[in-house]
Each structure stands twice: as structure tokens, then as C-alpha cells.
């Protein structure tokens, strides 16, 4: 009993280390085989359509609602201190710095990341990847790398759209519905938000999240056991792992970026 437990822990640890090593090798392989993704840009554009454009609706609608909720809640709190003009600052800063990149990345992980894993896992299960290798087509260059770059390119755009939509939602609730002064809403926002400190850091965050999510999704798909159960397990792992990775990375990046500001 005890022996079996210890053996189990040992096996899992060794497997975990093996997986990390394989994931690193896989990630480097994708980077080295990225040439095709840019030489045959059509492949990447096709993937941008599937990961980016098709995620637009969920991103825009969620952004709008997150902004509207921020507007309502922020107004409630700020009103107590008689500073409801600062609503624009609150909505814009929280969206641009944190919520935009993070929530967009979480949605992207569940909307596009899971799809990537399922697609590649199924390709592997039906031996399409092996068939490509037979025909001397490198599946990493032909299938994996375009999806990787499509995710990395789509993510910052999606995050920026999320933030813009959220600010519009906050404007709708704060100014149109509740009646906060429009001029001070925008001008205070403009005073408080700085391009380099806030907007650019948010974009850098979303690029990092894009890299993390697509790398995890692709690896899980490529590593999935070639069974129905294996693919479904890999899809679940993609969403869980990439969401946790996004939150952990966000903490690290925030600690680096915004330490000097208070």
C-alpha cells in the first residue's frame, strides 16, 4: 500500500519532468520551423480567421458587459466619496491594465485554445500527422507553426478590442444611463491613462498570454493519446493549464511592470 503510493508519486514526478522536457523541445521546434508560417502566409491567415475572427463575438460581447458592470459597480463605490467623475479613470485603468488582457486571454483559451487542441489531437488520432510525415511534409511546419503564430497575432488585437468595448460599455452605463458628466469622464480618463505605462504594458501582457495559451494548446494536442478519451482529456487540460498559466503570468508581469507606480 505504502510502497504503491510512493511508487505512484515517483512515476508521476518522472512523467512530469519528461513532459516538461518534451514541451520545451516541442516549443523550440515550432520556433525553428516557423519559416513556412510566414512564407506561405495564407496558412497563417486561415488560422487567424479560425482563432481570431471567430472569437470576436464572444470577446466583444463579454467586453461590453464587463465594462457595463464596472461602470455600475464603480459608480456605486465612487459615489460614496463624491468622486463619480473618476469613473472613467477606474473603468479605463482596470480594463487596460488587467481585465482586458486577462479576461480576453481566459476567453481565448476556452474558445480557441480548446479548439486547437481538439483539432490537432484528432489529426494525430486519425494519423493525419503521420501521413504528412510519410509524404515528407513536416507537420510541425505545416500544421503547428501557422496556428502558433495566428494565436500570437490574434491575442493582442482581441485584448485591445475587449478593452475598447469595455470602455464603451462603461461609458454607456456611466454617462448615458446614470448621467456622469461626459467631459470629465473622458478628460480625467485621458489624464490618468498613459500610453507607455498602461496601454503598451497591456499589449505586451496580451502578447505573452497569446504565446502561452497557443503553445500549451498545441502541445496538449500534439501530446494527446490517440483515443477519444485522450483527446477529450487533453482539451480539458488545455483550458485548465492555460487559464492557470495566464493568471500566474499576469501576477509576475504586473509585479514587474507596475511596481513603481502607485
Amino acid at each position: 500500500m505504502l510502497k504503491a503510493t510512493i511508487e505512484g508519486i515517483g512515476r508521476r514526478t518522472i512523467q512530469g519532468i519528461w513532459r516538461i522536457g518534451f514541451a520545451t523541445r516541442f516549443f523550440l521546434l515550432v520556433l525553428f520551423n516557423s519559416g513556412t508560417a510566414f512564407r506561405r502566409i495564407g496558412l497563417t491567415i486561415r488560422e487567424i480567421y479560425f482563432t481570431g475572427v471567430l472569437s470576436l463575438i464572444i470577446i466583444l460581447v463579454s467586453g461590453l458587459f464587463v465594462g457595463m458592470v464596472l461602470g455600475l459597480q464603480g459608480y456605486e463605490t465612487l459615489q460614496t466619496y463624491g468622486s463619480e467623475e473618476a469613473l472613467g479613470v477606474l473603468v479605463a485603468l482596470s480594463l487596460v491594465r488587467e481585465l482586458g488582457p486577462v479576461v480576453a486571454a481566459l476567453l481565448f483559451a476556452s474558445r480557441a485554445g480548446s479548439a486547437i487542441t481538439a483539432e490537432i489531437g484528432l489529426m494525430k488520432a486519425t494519423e493525419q500527422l503521420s501521413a504528412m510525415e510519410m509524404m515528407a511534409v513536416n507537420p510541425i511546419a505545416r500544421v503547428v507553426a501557422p496556428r502558433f503564430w495566428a494565436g500570437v497575432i490574434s491575442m493582442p488585437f482581441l485584448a485591445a478590442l475587449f478593452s475598447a468595448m469595455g470602455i464603451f460599455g462603461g461609458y454607456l452605463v456611466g454617462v448615458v444611463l446614470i448621467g456622469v458628466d461626459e467631459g470629465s469622464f473622458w478628460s480625467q480618463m485621458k489624464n490618468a491613462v498613459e500610453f507607455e505605462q498602461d496601454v503598451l504594458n497591456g499589449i505586451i501582457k496580451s502578447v505573452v498570454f497569446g504565446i502561452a495559451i497557443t503553445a500549451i494548446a498545441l502541445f496538449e494536442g500534439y501530446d494527446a493519446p490517440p483515443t477519444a478519451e485522450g483527446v477529450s482529456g487533453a482539451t480539458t487540460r488545455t483550458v485548465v493549464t492555460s487559464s492557470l498559466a495566464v493568471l500566474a503570468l499576469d501576477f509576475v508581469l504586473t509585479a514587474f511592470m507596475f511596481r513603481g507606480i502607485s
Partner: protein
Amino acid sequence: MNKTVLDFWVGVFVIAGMGAVLFLALKVGSMNVVKTSSSYEITAKFDNVGGLKVRAPVKSAGVVVGRVTDIQFDGEAFEAIVTLRIDNRYAFPKDTLAAIMTSGLLGEQYLGLDAGGDSEMLKDQDKIFLTQSAVVLENLIGQFLYGKAQEGVSE
């Protein structure tokens, strides 16, 4: 290479994304107007900077003319050395008074510049000699109480 419907939608996506970034840059955030190339640096010594922080605005007549870029402690004179960058468009006389003020009762602290009457203007790396420290509430209360006590003695 044929143009496809996919290309169109990806184009729409990219343009919308760029538009969002532009919106965030111009309408939501202020692109840093005071660039390092078109500004000059000035230092000022203060007995006490209070709650002044790096990146706090430098205002003259209520208008933002620059930013605080650095705050250091001078271990020899036991004073705070504040470095500020001022937009090249604005020149200030040599005898300008730099004072640390608070916007509103609980607002952020900023550096106020009161122009003097000197005909010579401040240049890059110059020092401001006339400074007024931040008002520390505890000292103010202390002075008030001391004054009250003095009144009681003289009566």
C-alpha cells in the same frame, strides 16, 4: 494566390484591432507629449517633499508643463533632490519658485512653478534655488497648538 472570403474577414479583424489600439492610445490614454528630446531637465532641493512621487505633474498656473522624473536623497545636506523635465515650449526665469502643492484636500501632490521676474531663463541641468517644501499636517497642527499656548502665556 487567390483572394478569399477568409482574407476579407481577417482584414476586417486586423483593422478593427488596430482601431482599438489607436482608440486606446489617443482617446483613452495620452500619448506622451513631453518627449525626452524636446524637454529640459532641472533640479530643485527641498527640505521635505511630503508625498510627492516620481511621474507627478509639474504645473504652472494650473497647466501641466512637465513631470517629476526622479527623487533622490542628498546624504550630505540631508535634503531631497527632485529632478523634473519641462517641455521645451516653456521657459521659466531663474528666480522661479518651486513649491509642492496638493490638488484638493486629499488629492495627489504636484510641483507648482511660480515664475519670477528675472530676465535670464532656466537652462538644461540648472538648479532652482527658491523652493517651498510640502506642508506636513502634523507640523501645522503642532505650530497652531504652540501658538495657542504662547497666547495663553502672554495674557
